[in-house]
């Protein structure tokens, strides 16, 4: 529990002099905010625990428990600050005066309106049974953010939540960009070093990002790398130098792992495209798009069929860019897959991640495309940077996935204007559920080869790459 000890250390003198503590607070904004953040988190945790307990229907316990928990947290807080004065409240939720008697309901409602993983009972009941182990994250605003969350992270969170920034590489790049801003504005609090404290500061930013959508595998790999880099920052160099070097290292990482990697993949994959090919692709992959654009630039005559699916319709953007570059394109929704598959010569797919047992974790619908192509003996080629490799293993799409908002299914429009269909009151019917999952798993036998910047390999060789290059 690093933050605790560091915070305690910083305000160790048993706060006899209130002004002294306050002066310190004024100077060390970070630590003060850290305390506030911690208090807030404790209060939120208590509220959540109380909510979960009350849900299970234990009648008399919740208020008492909530009260006890709040007492404990308050006692700890009391030790650190002299003034028993009001600790700024948990995001507008219950007050902390005395033995907090916040009702679980008000805590939930405040949480529900502002964000974080929903534990409210109505949302829980409406999740499909098979997927009850997954949470639906939802975020509409950032009003509940702690003061130490950087504005770049706030805007990125909203971009994630609204699916404006979507796609594995795009999210990774955007996250690293935001981290560069965070590091630039970071000032180490007294009594600790950059290499120890920055990691925790970043962790808080990441926790806030997670409330919009779970982290992608690329983001996970990048963050692990960054934390590793931070921990080996030498104590001898000044903070300014350390920050600059970190920012530059991030720049290099983005360039190497994403931009250069993409170029190498493009060079390699373009060789798979020949004149007269009709290539099928699913949804939108940034790498695959680059492959097609490069092939087009080289003057190879081929055409592309883009298969799209709802609710995101990412394929439209793909087809827009390709047709603007002069490629002959066809656009069809996934229900028309069998109809178009007769003329296809090869299939190019993108990836969200490739798992250690060779499975491809990608946008939901990829498995269907790969299976249909394989049944017709059409080769399936996956283009994916090594940053997308993961140590995880998974056997089916149910044990781990991301749940999207079920209301996306209720809306039956094909453009940006929402059009509620016959299911607009689906929540009123207890037997009716809508399922919106974002990813699925494609077995390795459907994939001919995976093109990465370290070479082209069969799906079974992924763990070898992970071990050899330590990229995950």
């Amino acid at each position, binding site marked *: 529990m690093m933050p605790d000890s560091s915070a305690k250390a910083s305000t160790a003198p048993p706060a006899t002099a209130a002004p002294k503590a306050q002066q310190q607070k004024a100077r060390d904004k970070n630590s003060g905010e850290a305390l506030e953040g911690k208090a807030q988190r404790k209060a939120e945790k208590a509220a959540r625990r109380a909510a979960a307990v009350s849900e299970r229907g234990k009648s008399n316990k919740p208020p008492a428990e909530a009260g006890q928990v709040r007492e404990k947290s308050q006692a700890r807080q009391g030790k650190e600050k002299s003034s028993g004065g009001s600790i700024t409240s948990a995001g507008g939720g219950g007050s902390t005066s005395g033995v907090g008697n916040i009702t679980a309901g008000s805590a939930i409602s405040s949480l529900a309106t502002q964000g974080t993983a929903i534990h409210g009972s109505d949302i829980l009941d409406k999740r499909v049974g098979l997927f009850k182990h997954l949470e639906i994250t939802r975020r509409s605003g950032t009003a509940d953010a702690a003061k130490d969350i950087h504005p770049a992270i706030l805007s990125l969170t909203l971009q994630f939540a609204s699916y404006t920034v979507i796609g594995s590489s795009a999210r990774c790049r955007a996250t690293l960009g935001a981290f560069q801003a965070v590091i630039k504005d970071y000032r180490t609090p007294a009594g600790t070093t950059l290499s120890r404290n920055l990691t925790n500061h970043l962790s808080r930013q990441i926790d806030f990002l997670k409330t919009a959508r779970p982290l992608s595998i690329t983001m996970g790999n990048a963050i692990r790398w960054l934390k590793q880099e931070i921990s080996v920052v030498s104590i001898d160099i000044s903070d300014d130098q350390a920050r600059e070097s970190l920012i530059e290292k991030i720049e290099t990482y983005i360039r190497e792992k994403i931009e250069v990697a993409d170029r190498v993949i493009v060079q390699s994959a373009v060789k798979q495209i020949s004149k007269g090919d009709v290539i099928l692709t699913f949804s939108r992959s940034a790498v695959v798009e680059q492959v097609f654009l490069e092939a087009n630039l080289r003057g190879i005559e081929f055409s592309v069929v883009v298969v799209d699916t709802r609710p995101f319709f990412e394929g439209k953007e793909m087809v827009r860019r390709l047709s603007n570059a002069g490629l002959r394109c066809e656009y069809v929704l*996934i*229900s028309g897959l*069998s109809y178009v598959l007769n003329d296809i010569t090869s299939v190019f797919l993108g990836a969200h991640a490739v798992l250690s047992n060779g499975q491809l974790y990608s946008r939901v*619908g990829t498995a269907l495309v790969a299976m249909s192509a394989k049944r017709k003996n059409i080769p399936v080629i996956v283009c994916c940077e090594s940053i997308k490799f993961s140590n995880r293993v998974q056997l089916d799409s149910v044990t781990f996935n991301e749940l999207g908002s079920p209301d996306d*299914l209720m809306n039956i429009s094909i453009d940006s204007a929402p059009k509620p269909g016959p299911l607009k009151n689906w929540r009123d019917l207890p*037997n*009716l559920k809508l399922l919106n999952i974002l990813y699925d798993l494609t077995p390795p036998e459907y994939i001919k080869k995976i093109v990465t910047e370290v070479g082209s390999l069969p799906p079974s060789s992924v763990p070898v790459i992970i071990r050899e290059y330590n990229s995950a």
Partner: protein
Amino acid sequence: MLATGAHITKEKDLNAHIEGFVAQLKRRQIQGSYNVALATAQLLLRVVSAARWTHIDQLVTQIKILGKRLQGAQPRELACGNIIRRVLALIREESEDTNGSESGDGVANSPLITSMFSLLSTNDEYGANRLSQSLMDGTGKSIKKDLKPYIIEGIQELIDELRNIDESIASMGVEMIHENETILTPTPNSKTVLKFLLRTAQKRKFTVLVVEVFPNDVEKTHEFALKLAEAGIETTVITDAMVYSIMGRVGKVVLGTHAVLANGGLLASAGAAMICQCANVHRTPVVVCTGLYKLSPMYPFDVESLIEVGDTGKVLAFEDGSLVDKVNVVNPLYDYVPPESVDLCITNMGGYSPSFMYRLVLDHYRQEDATL
């Protein structure tokens, strides 16, 4: 005079009715195999009632001509042609039954080619020859008068069969579905499947995953899901893309179809082919619920010509109009499902394997009527 006058006006009425029906078919005012089949049967009832013939093959020719017109109005609505062929087979059967003992060699009832000569002759001649031969066996005029009520009775039975199809199919549900089963349905625009599931739900508790067939039938799909949920069935709506990910948890796939072809293959809603393939990969049984009126004697030599393509405006909206110029947008309405993908066809006459469908075609249709 009055009699002939009444006859003329009756004919005019009938012609008006026929014209009206053809126009409705052309304008797609009658949609869906069931509605078209029922309307065609009722029309044929009127036609046969009003028709006059000296030889039975005159009736056959009249109906063939009418049938060609009707089929031309909505060429991909195979149910229309099916009903016409059923009625034609009925007529031939009635006439042969009456003369069967007299023609003697028993060949008349079998559509199989039994002599080298008949191999070399065309179908029309073959059929016409046989019929006029059998009628020439002395009993001439009296036969044609006797046949009319039988034919009309036959058509009436056909109409009753049409009306009771869903009932017979639905009653087979309890034999197919067990408790706590998960059913996936890729064609929720089918009334047959709806009745099948609702009836089975009275005796079994199961879950249904409804695939929304986006974009063509999505509203019907959502209403289907509403009806199931209101009847107390655990219903979950999923998109077409999610099928592979949850297929491992599905017990059976139950679908309806637009048409069944002679080889046992299906012409079903878009997306059904890939979903059935997905079920095959997971070794999940695929069950088709269809009335026999959807069984067509056509063989899918050219599958693409059978698949109708719909409104591309449902795929790309007006907002993306700039794309439509540069991009070829396709919106197929149907899918061809090969017979290997299907495990069982449940019809109003019982359950059959797709490899048996050709036999049902032989039972209900005559080879001479294959081309109208």
